[in-house]
């Protein structure tokens, strides 16, 4: 497949993802979690059955990888206030027990594995620290008594 053709297919796959799989999800944190969870942590490859069926496994993997990078870049450079809003919305809406979700996020730090494969260490740390701080602010607002490390 020619390079231009491949790039066109990837662009189509990204649009497809945005219009179908992610269309109903408003919160970028949720989107990032979904995209990051489609990655195999052993190989670093991304998998999406529906997308692979429509396009090909390779195109699906590249499309997911680029979308992951796009979402991550957007979130990492977002002002802390906005990021805190997104984190708060996620914590309050993802389950019936927001305090449990908050405690789990603070204790297990799932946000530390959300960065794309190509992310440099400074940016990865910047994101993790931003989310950690956002969780601290949310904990204050929600009234949780979680200790800060």
């Amino acid at each position, binding site marked *: 497949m020619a390079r231009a053709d491949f790039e066109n297919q990837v662009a189509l796959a990204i649009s497809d993802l945005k219009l179908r799989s992610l269309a109903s999800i408003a919160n970028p944190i949720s989107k990032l979690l979904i995209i990051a969870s489609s990655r195999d942590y052993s190989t670093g490859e991304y998998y999406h059955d529906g997308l692979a069926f429509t396009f090909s496994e390779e195109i699906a993997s590249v499309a997911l*990888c*680029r979308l992951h*990078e796009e979402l*991550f*870049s957007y979130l*990492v*450079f977002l*002002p*802390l*206030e906005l990021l*805190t809003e997104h984190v708060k919305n996620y914590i309050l809406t993802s389950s019936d027990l927001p305090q449990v979700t908050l405690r789990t996020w603070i204790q297990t730090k799932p946000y530390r594995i959300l960065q*794309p*494969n*190509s*992310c*440099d*260490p*400074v*940016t990865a*740390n*910047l994101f993790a*620290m931003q989310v*950690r*701080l956002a969780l*601290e*602010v949310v904990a*204050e607002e929600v009234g949780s008594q979680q200790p*800060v490390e």
Partner: protein
Amino acid sequence: MTLGIIIILVSVLILCLQLEVIRLHRYLATEIVASTSGAGVPASGFSTQSLAYFQKAGQKIISKEDWDFVCKRSEKARSLFLIQRKNLALQWLSEGECRVVSLISVHRKAMRMNAELVPWQEVCCFGYYIFFRAFTLGAKVVTLICGPFALRRFVNGIMLVCGKIGPGVAEFEPLAEA
């Protein structure tokens, strides 16, 4: 005569030390590049895209907007923010150093075999490199003592030198690989 010999010996000693430092940093740079290889979010070197990304990270670390937001929060959040940003500022400076050192080593390899070497350009490049190392060292000390926002005074200077060294040296990468 004796003074001349002493000056030559000291110069040779400084050059040897410099080469040792470059070798050590090259090793560190290789470690960083190896741990961050891939496409998309630029991870190494100073191509135009990577430079812009590196600058964005630096500016984010010292963002006043974030500080203003945290100021309205508890003391706990404020102190957490300051600790985090100080660590990030130091990490940012170290990564900048490692990238420049790796670029300089690529440049050195390429220049050794280049018949069209222009000595004046090499002296300028070396001057920028020494200035950069001194500048980042100063920035690290100031950040350690005065906190992350002291980095604000240094970011533009560091980016200026990276901008001078990066794209120029990147041109020679294929030569070094050959």
